[in-house]
């Protein structure tokens, strides 16, 4: 990371350390809105980090944003930061105007949303934070292909729902909702957005993995059993080694994925990362809970704020099933005669 990028990450991490603690996450999970967290990010102009300067942003890159998403996972940050910033990425990448409002998005292969005569109709499930935000950026089927559309959620019926981490995942019903802005996109663009969104979730998951690992290391130092700190027991050491391994591998995977995205060459890196992180999420959640034992499954302890996010996020966006299929298709089609040649190729694929 450049110094500039590191500074941004440090500023935001400091904000989260100050503003987001266990109790904050608890009250948001119970249905409150964390205005103070939102406000301080807005005051620090962190909501437009990746928006270009001519659009009033800080002119940062996708990689700044992805590094910030790690912090969302690491502090279980209970506001639609990913959603708002990613909605703006979608808007800006397709030449639309960015929004200053709170926003969310729905980008999937199969959406039952259609656009007709300047209005949008359809029902979308699991829209993050819909009830709290103003704008929705969504991919809709137009009469002659895909369109990226922005609609106001004031024009939508919203039925609240949530994921395992009690994050809002609402059902949004649009009936002839007026389009705010729209533009055609290609199938390749949609695929690219799906990949970016999957990368964003991976980054957030990696942050939650880091935190679960850290909490566990700390616990093994504090907790004693049979007269000695539990990190002295070989079976606990095995858990710690497994956790450290998953943490360092996922963290390095994210670094490498971000580097690939920054170079606009995200051949298979998003796929590898997401698949590996879902596997890591399983191992880390299981090991962290096993070491924490009974105390870790109480609501009072903070561990579950991270493990429940891991269990939720791994099911959101393009995940293992999507990516193994993509990889399998590519492997079937490559003309290299050897796997090694394919793996070490550095050809660039997405050039958007």
């Amino acid at each position, binding site marked *: 990371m450049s110094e500039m990028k590191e500074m941004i990450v440090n500023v935001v991490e400091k904000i989260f350390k100050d503003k987001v603690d266990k109790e904050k996450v608890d009250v948001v999970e119970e249905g409150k809105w964390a205005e103070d967290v939102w406000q301080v990010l807005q005051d620090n102009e962190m909501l437009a980090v990746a928006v270009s300067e001519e659009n009033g942003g800080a002119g940062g890159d996708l990689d700044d944003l992805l590094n910030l998403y790690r912090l969302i996972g690491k502090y279980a940050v209970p506001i639609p930061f990913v959603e708002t910033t990613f909605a703006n990425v979608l808007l800006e990448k397709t030449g639309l105007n960015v929004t200053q409002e709170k926003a969310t998005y729905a980008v999937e292969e199969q959406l039952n949303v259609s656009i007709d005569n300047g209005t949008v109709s359809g029902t979308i499930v699991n829209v993050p934070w819909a009830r709290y935000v103003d704008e929705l950026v969504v991919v809709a089927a137009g009469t002659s292909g895909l369109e990226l559309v922005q609609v106001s959620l004031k024009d939508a019926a919203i039925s609240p729902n949530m994921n*395992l981490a009690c994050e809002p995942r609402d059902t949004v019903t649009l009936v002839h909702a007026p389009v705010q802005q729209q533009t055609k996109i290609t199938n390749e663009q949609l695929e690219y957005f799906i990949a970016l969104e999957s990368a964003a979730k991976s980054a957030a998951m990696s942050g939650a993995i880091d935190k679960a690992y850290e909490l566990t290391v700390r616990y093994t130092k504090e907790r004693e059993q049979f007269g000695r700190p539990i990190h002295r027991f070989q079976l606990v050491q095995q858990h710690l080694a497994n956790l450290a391994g998953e943490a360092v591998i996922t963290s390095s995977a994210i670094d490498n994925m971000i580097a690939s995205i920054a170079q606009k060459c995200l051949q298979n890196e998003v796929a590898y990362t997401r698949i590996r992180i879902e596997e890591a999420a399983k191992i880390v959640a299981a090991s962290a809970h096993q070491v924490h034992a009974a105390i870790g499954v109480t609501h009072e302890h903070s561990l579950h704020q991270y493990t429940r996010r891991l269990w939720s996020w791994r099911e959101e966006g393009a995940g293992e099933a999507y990516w193994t299929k993509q990889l399998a298709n590519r492997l079937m089609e490559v003309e290299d005669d050897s796997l090694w040649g394919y793996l070490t190729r550095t050809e660039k694929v997405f050039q958007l």
Partner: protein
Amino acid sequence: MFSLPTVQFTDEQEQFRLEVRAFLQEHLAKGTFKTKCDSWLSGSDPAFSKLIGEQGWIGLTWPKKYGGQERSTIDRYILTEEFLAVGAPVAAHWFADRQTGPLLMRFGTEEQREFFLPKIVKGECYFGIGLSEPNSGSDLASVKTRAEKVDGGWIINGSKTWTSNAHDAHYAVTLIRTEPLGEKKHDGLSQLIIDLHAEGVTIVPIKYLTGEHHFNEVFFDNVFVPDNMVVGTLGNGWKQGLAELAFERSGPERILSTFPLLDELIAGLKRQGDAAGMKEASKVLSRLWGLRNLSIGVAKVLEEGGEVAIPAALVKSIGTKFEQSIPEITRLLVRTYPRLEAERRIDRFMAESTLHAPGFTIRGGTSEVLYGMVAKGVVGQ
């Protein structure tokens, strides 16, 4: 090597299974209960327990004079399997049926049996287990709760934790220090039955990570327990408690806690005609079958009074890993969106299984403790 018997169910046993199943299906259809994963811990429903009591299905193996049916352990095994396979809410009477009854049968006084067992079989008297204490963790013998002898009984001070369903229960069987801590911490412990509605008892919920209330911390502040509530021999509580463990560790509840999800997975794969997925899922059945043979074999030996501490610990350690694996396997074979309030059964079962899974390999003896126990056992053989 341990050798365990194979069990072939008799025609009467098959018949009994179908009878239980029909009853449960009827009540499922009626809406008396809703299928739930891990229902033996998280599905407390006193009304349902009373219904089960009316069927004669609590204390099934107990003597008729206490209201039992004097049926075989295998019958009880079948009954339990049917409850769990359909995820019935049996948590309220669970511990009284599984642990308290057998304990009283083995160590209790006639007075205790006559007083408690008929109430238990009716599904009207529930028990909590007061074993763990704050900070005791796996070191269960580090008991600090103490009893002081007074005229006609004991005065209890201290606290117990992780007591499942104490808030629904009427009594708790507790492990209490009745003699001052000596050289061996396992000595001087006794089992006392404490009335959870007695003066000085405070029950504080411990919220599960879902926010649900299954566990409690139970505080005792000068609680009087009469002499006739001591179970078995004073000072022998640790050994008496150990004897229960093989029962506690080897039952179908160490294999089937997430079975409703597996059922739903197979149904989904069938609907989708997903042959490759079904091949993967069939491996799960092979594991289930292996564990079930083992668990039934242990039940059979237990009935005959044999020694099965090691295979029972193996059912627990391997079975609970199996239960945990079901949501992880499911999510790789079908797309789910886990949600506790979901309409799709598979989403709801995924949520219940995923959120409850961490506890499987912790409750009733962590896997780590069990490995040590098994190893010591096999090395000593």
